[in-house]
């Protein structure tokens, strides 16, 4: 019973380590996966540069964040030039904002993107029904909209059979021409609560920007994943030339999927270490529990130790006996803990699936090996003191002990 409680300390410690590492690894894998699903050959071009906002932006340098020239449609067209940028496959300039969508009393706020037909393939979207914006819609500045499934459900309570209905976006009527398939939660929040209208329509009626032809983000698809660095170079030089910015003072930022991956991997890496560290502390506490119970056990079994010595047990024999007991205790705890931790990780995974998040905790062999050996070492380490106390008892005293 008491040994059981002691083992429980180790069980909880090991289970915590396993579960925490599994959740950490799972989060990492999930984020890495969702970033990969963006497409490995996708680049994002934003206006403004991280350096110009905080770095050499003082009065002495002559340049500041205010001098940033916005990206424009002609920038996008220049990037799309196959001669200037042979590594670029497709270019999709967008205007991005949020808008209030209403349909007969129901209303919801969703992201609103002014997009071109290229956006569909650049972002690797898929239609659940209907069609995406085509060049006719662009030229005619037509009032048509493509909805993400979540936005559709918010308005209609369902995501199918809504093509042809007319909704209002910021009070203006738009006809639904298509609904996208669900993509699940992404690294940038849900991409399903969205609406897409023709670029030109957005430009003239809904998302007005300071400069004519201004765009918010230019999505660029490189010809292949290997060509991404090359594409970055080409795009940079085109925009630098057009904006007449000196090298080192870029007024734009190009993000690639690899950049996102690095950022998120470092975040989840810190998270995993942090969680594992907390779990490790509970393992340490469990080890102290083992030491405690072993000390009690040595006191309780003083007579037994005395008897064993009378029968010819040497110090080594007694030491070995108690060390074996303590490491066995914590090893058993470790094994139960692994199963328990696995269970916790599995339950977390099920909960995540049930709540619609694509997130599977991963129980790694490294976590298992780490926590098993760690718990055995803890058993040994915290067993040494009680065991040596037992081994050094005087047989006469020990036999007389009541």
């Amino acid at each position, binding site marked *: 019973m008491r040994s059981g409680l002691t083992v429980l300390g180790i069980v909880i410690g090991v289970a915590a380590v396993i579960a925490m590492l599994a959740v950490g690894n799972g989060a990492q894998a999930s984020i890495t996966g969702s970033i990969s699903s963006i497409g490995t050959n996708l680049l994002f071009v934003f206006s403004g540069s991280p350096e110009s906002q905080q770095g050499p932006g003082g009065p002495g340098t002559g340049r500041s964040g205010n001098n940033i020239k916005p990206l424009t449609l002609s920038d996008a067209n220049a990037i799309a030039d196959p001669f200037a940028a042979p590594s670029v496959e497709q270019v999709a300039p967008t205007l991005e904002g949020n808008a209030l969508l209403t349909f007969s009393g129901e209303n919801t706020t969703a992201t609103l993107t002014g997009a071109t037909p290229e956006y569909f393939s650049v972002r690797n979207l898929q239609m659940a029904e209907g069609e995406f914006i085509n060049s006719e819609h662009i030229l005619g500045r037509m009032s048509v909209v493509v909805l993400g499934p979540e936005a559709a459900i918010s308005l209609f309570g369902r995501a199918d059979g809504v093509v042809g209905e007319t909704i209002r976006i910021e009070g203006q009527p738009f006809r639904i021409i298509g609904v996208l398939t669900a993509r699940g939660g992404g690294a940038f929040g849900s991409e399903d609560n969205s609406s897409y209208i023709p670029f030109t329509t957005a430009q003239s009626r809904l998302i007005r920007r300071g400069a004519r032809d201004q765009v918010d983000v230019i999505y660029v698809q490189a010809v292949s994943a290997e060509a991404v660095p090359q594409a970055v170079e080409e795009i940079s030089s085109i925009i630098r030339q057009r904006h007449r910015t000196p090298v080192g003072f870029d007024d734009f930022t190009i993000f690639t999927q690899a950049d996102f991956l690095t950022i998120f991997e470092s975040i989840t890496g810190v998270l995993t270490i942090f969680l594992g560290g907390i779990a490790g502390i509970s393992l340490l506490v469990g080890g102290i529990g083992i030491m405690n119970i072993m000390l009690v056990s040595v006191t309780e079994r003083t007579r037994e130790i005395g008897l064993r010595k009378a029968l*010819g047990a040497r110090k080594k024999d007694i030491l070995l006996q108690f060390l074996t007991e303590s490491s066995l205790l914590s090893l058993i705890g470790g094994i139960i803990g692994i199963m328990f931790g696995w269970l916790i990780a599995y339950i977390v995974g099920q909960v995540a699936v049930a709540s619609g998040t694509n997130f599977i905790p991963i129980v790694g062999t490294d976590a298992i090996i780490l926590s098993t050996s760690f718990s055995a070492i803890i058993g040994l380490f915290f067993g040494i003191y009680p065991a040596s106390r037992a081994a050094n008892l005087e047989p006469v005293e020990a036999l007389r002990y009541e």
Partner: protein
Amino acid sequence: MTDWVVQAKDLVKTYMMGEFEVNALRGVSFNIKRGEVVSIMGPSGSGKSTMMNTLGCLDRPTSGEYILDGESVADMNDDQLASVRNRKIGFVFQSFNLLSRLTALGNVELPLRYAGMSEGRRAKAQAALEAVGLKDRMTHRPYELSGGQQQRVAIARSLVNDPAIIMADEPTGNLDSKVGKEIMSLLLNLNKERGTTLIIVTHDPNIAEQTQRVIRLRDGELDPDYDENGKKKS
């Protein structure tokens, strides 16, 4: 020349009890022949227990010489003493001192295990249990046995290593008189059959009567009122 199994010469044992120095043994000398049955008697505080611990190699004398079965043990270190206890001495305690987690057989096997014996351990332990008449109780645990049976297991354990001497500390102290008699006759029989030297520490005169010789202690010395055969001087 007599075959002495125990040769004790000027045994002195002094230990500190708090601030006070206690002279438990003040120079005791005696010899015990191989195969002899000897009892050690004395009132409490006479140094009886200290004598038992010293003869049983559980403790070292402060000074003096103790030769057990040809080996001088007074200057041995802890592990050497453990080995001597294992090979040459069998203990029988008043309160049996069996390990409750082990079966009768497991308890008897224990000294063999510490002797480093691996093969034939079981057979030897079984033979010892048969010798004390517990052939059909081998797989019982101590709490499933009566007091007399437990003491028989303890006796089997004490003789399983073919020791030079068996030290019995009040072996019948926790038993009623009938069972106590059985245990005494078992010990005396084993002595007759095997020729194992038997040293019984007791304060019961009836027990002492059954032994060939009584060593009487008083105040850490041999009682001067008795001769070396335990007979009262007139």
